């Protein structure tokens, strides 16, 4: 028997014991599982692996922390409510246009940064209350934002998972725009139709997104899209809270402009990094809305980010220990220990599964060997489809980073996260099936696009 099996089982057992048995946070459970993995493999003298692994997602942690501070600043300044209200008034009567515009809005930051986190916590946060005000239940609206976030991550011009897979086989990031668009666009339109059918209150478009934004961000009650009748009494009060003028758009426009400038300049504009962009956006948010106590906004943002950051630190330790003990290699080799014809099926299952820890890690650990196993299957289209599967992992438990961040940002807690995850089951399966189709007929699709 492979010793890696015992190590892996001990790690999974420790995770379940700490998380479910002792009811400790997932961050402690993953870190504890990593420690048990070291102990089970006789490596207690190598505790440095826990420290090194903890830095595995350092840059992602910075993005999440600063994105949450940006989001908290927008909320504290009333900008989130204000913009949501304006969008609802403008598009509330046209469900299809509303959902298509919402999808594009959610996808934009992901397309520019290659980060689903950035998409979920920026424009995704604006779209959520708008959809809820239009009658879309919170769970479905959250699922829609989560789908938009990962499709934005996949869509061109920036797809980091493809770049990671490409760097593993020395394939330049050239000629991917059309295949990535062809892969991301159909599901994006389908998701828009899916949500448009749930828009039940066309024409309401009034003050109401303000209150719904508060619901989505403040109460934590998973209100499933509706406000009770008493909340309508607050209409006049909400109107008093409105922030006039163009300045509310400045933080998000400057943020998107920075992302866009870095991309279109093709290297001539220095890249300050996504965390710094969010920091600039947060400062602008504090200046462009109602008065904000900066320290409180920062504290609140970091407070919201900490649980997810903790899970990623623990996941980093887990992956490091899995690698050093050979568990990672055992899982990858076992996944590929199949006839060639089944490699695509394994890709559809294994990439999202590894992506449940991190889409980027999945791209490197599983994406590269699978692409190597599929050489000759039109590598560009194949890598593009694999990136969709890796990105799908951002929706999957145990970490389910995008749904977790959405529920965290709405202060909805585990119940909201669970509701969003349930809503994502069917779209997730359909996305995986779509990726399978693209992988299966990659050469033909490649010819069609060339």
């Amino acid at each position: 028997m492979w010793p890696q099996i015992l190590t892996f089982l001990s790690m999974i057992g420790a995770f379940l014991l700490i998380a479910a048995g002792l009811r400790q946070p997932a961050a402690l459970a993953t870190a504890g599982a990593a420690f048990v993995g070291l102990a089970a493999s006789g490596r207690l003298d190598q505790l440095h692996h826990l420290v090194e692994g903890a830095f595995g997602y350092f840059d992602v942690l910075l993005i999440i922390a600063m994105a949450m501070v940006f989001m908290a600043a927008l909320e504290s300044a009333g900008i989130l409510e204000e913009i949501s209200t304006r969008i609802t008034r403008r598009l509330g009567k046209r469900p299809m246009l509303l959902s298509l515009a919402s999808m594009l809005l959610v996808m934009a930051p992901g397309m520019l940064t290659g980060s689903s986190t950035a998409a979920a916590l920026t424009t995704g946060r604006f779209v959520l209350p708008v959809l809820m005000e239009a009658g879309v239940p919170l769970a479905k609206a959250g699922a829609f934002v989560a789908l938009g976030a990962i499709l934005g991550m996949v869509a061109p011009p920036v797809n980091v998972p493809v770049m990671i897979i490409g760097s593993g086989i020395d394939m330049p990031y050239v000629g991917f725009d059309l295949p990535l668009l062809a892969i991301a666009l159909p599901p994006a339109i389908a998701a828009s139709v899916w949500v448009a059918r749930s828009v039940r209150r066309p024409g309401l478009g009034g003050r109401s997104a303000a209150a719904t934004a508060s619901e989505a961000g403040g109460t934590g009650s998973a209100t499933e899209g509706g406000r009770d009748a008493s909340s309508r009494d607050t209409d006049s009060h909400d109107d008093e809270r409105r922030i006039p003028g163009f300045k509310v758009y400045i933080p998000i426009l400057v943020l998107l402009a920075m992302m866009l400038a870095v991309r279109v300049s093709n290297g001539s504009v220095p890249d300050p990094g996504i965390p710094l962009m969010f920091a600039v956006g947060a400062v602008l948010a504090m200046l462009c809305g109602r008065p904000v106590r900066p320290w409180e906004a920062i504290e609140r943002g970091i407070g919201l980010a900490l649980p997810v950051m903790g899970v990623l630190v623990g996941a980093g330790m887990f992956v490091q220990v899995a690698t050093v003990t050979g568990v990672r290699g055992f899982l990858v080799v076992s996944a590929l220990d199949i006839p060639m014809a089944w490699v695509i099926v394994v890709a559809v299952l294994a990439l999202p599964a590894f992506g449940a820890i991190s889409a980027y890690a999945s791209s490197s650990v599983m994406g590269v060997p699978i692409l190597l196993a599929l050489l000759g299957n039109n590598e560009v289209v194949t890598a593009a489809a694999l990136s969709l599967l890796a990105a799908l992992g951002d929706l999957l438990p145990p970490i389910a980073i995008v749904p977790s961040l959405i529920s965290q940002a709405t202060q909805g807690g585990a119940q909201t996260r669970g509701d969003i995850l349930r809503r994502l089951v069917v779209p997730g399966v359909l996305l995986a099936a779509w990726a399978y189709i693209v992988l299966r007929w990659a050469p033909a699709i490649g010819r069609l696009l060339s």
Partner: protein
Amino acid sequence: MGKHRARGILILALVLFVVGVSAARFAPESPTGLEVYPSASLTRRTWLSQYNPALKGTAGDTPVLVFEGALPGGTMLVLGGTHADEPAGAAAALVIAENVSPEQGRLIVIPYANASGFSHTLPQEGHPSHYTLDTPGGPRRIPFGSRLTNPVHQWPDPTVYIEKVQRQKLAGTESRNLNRAYPGEENGSLTAKVAYAITRLIVDEGVDVAVDLHESSPEYPVNNAIVAHDRAMDLAAIAAVELEYAGVSINIEPSPVNLRGLSHREWGDNTDTLAVLLESPNPSQGRLRGTTDERLVVEGIDPMYLKASLRGRLYVPYTEEGAPLAMRVGRHVASVEALAWSHTMLSPDRGIVLGGLPTYSELLENGVGAYLKPSR
């Protein structure tokens, strides 16, 4: 509240304990700590910052060793340690530097091309920081590192790295990959400065043949190979024939024109040198590897790779004997010697004759440590 506080204090204490006992592992090493004990043929020892003063005092500065034969001839550059997680590259450069006795021409060796890469290992790769070889005089501890510059020395990464030649987009972390940074920038990032200095060295020293020593994972198609720039194809072809005679089978791969920033492409395009890159199969590098430790680095035996090989997933032969470091270093040393011989055949007036190097079979038989000096 008290329970939460107690839990918090306990977790903090555990974190401090783990960080405390791990601290020594992460202590930075200075470039001057990168050991190399050159052979008696050394005629000049300098630093890479001689070719780009912007590197002076930085973690990117690294030793440059010049060996000169009695007869005038051409100049060969051998670069090890571009990727510090490809140990045969640096180890072969060390074996060459510590044993060579040129008869004709000049040999320039840079054993640790990306010195910063030797000061850390990549999170989630689980690599050791060093490995130890037995030498006749005692143990030799050789650093093992990362394929990227240490983020402590170059950070943050851009979201997308855009290389400078054709502005191709790569993952942001690749901005710290020396072999994506050529021809380099005099005052760019640390990695770009190192790349610039190496390109400058090739021009200033009139290097005829430049060899970049690498390794690749056994599941990677370009393996056991000489990757040659267009102008270096003849050089590689003759060397490959010579290697066959020595029992070393090697593939020749043309340097891809559309993949920029790599040594074999940019050295060849931007200087007059004949640029080649060598690959050998490294089981401690790939994604299929099992338990990752010093033993895997040195012995190269891995049951996971054996299983993958039996399923036809690898591009190199892999048996129960594995792919030991001695074999991989032997391939590199033999290839360098064959390339020098090939160049001498093609340009006798610029001949390069390297003496004193162990043969492939000697390295296989005696191990790498037999040709290195012990750590001091």
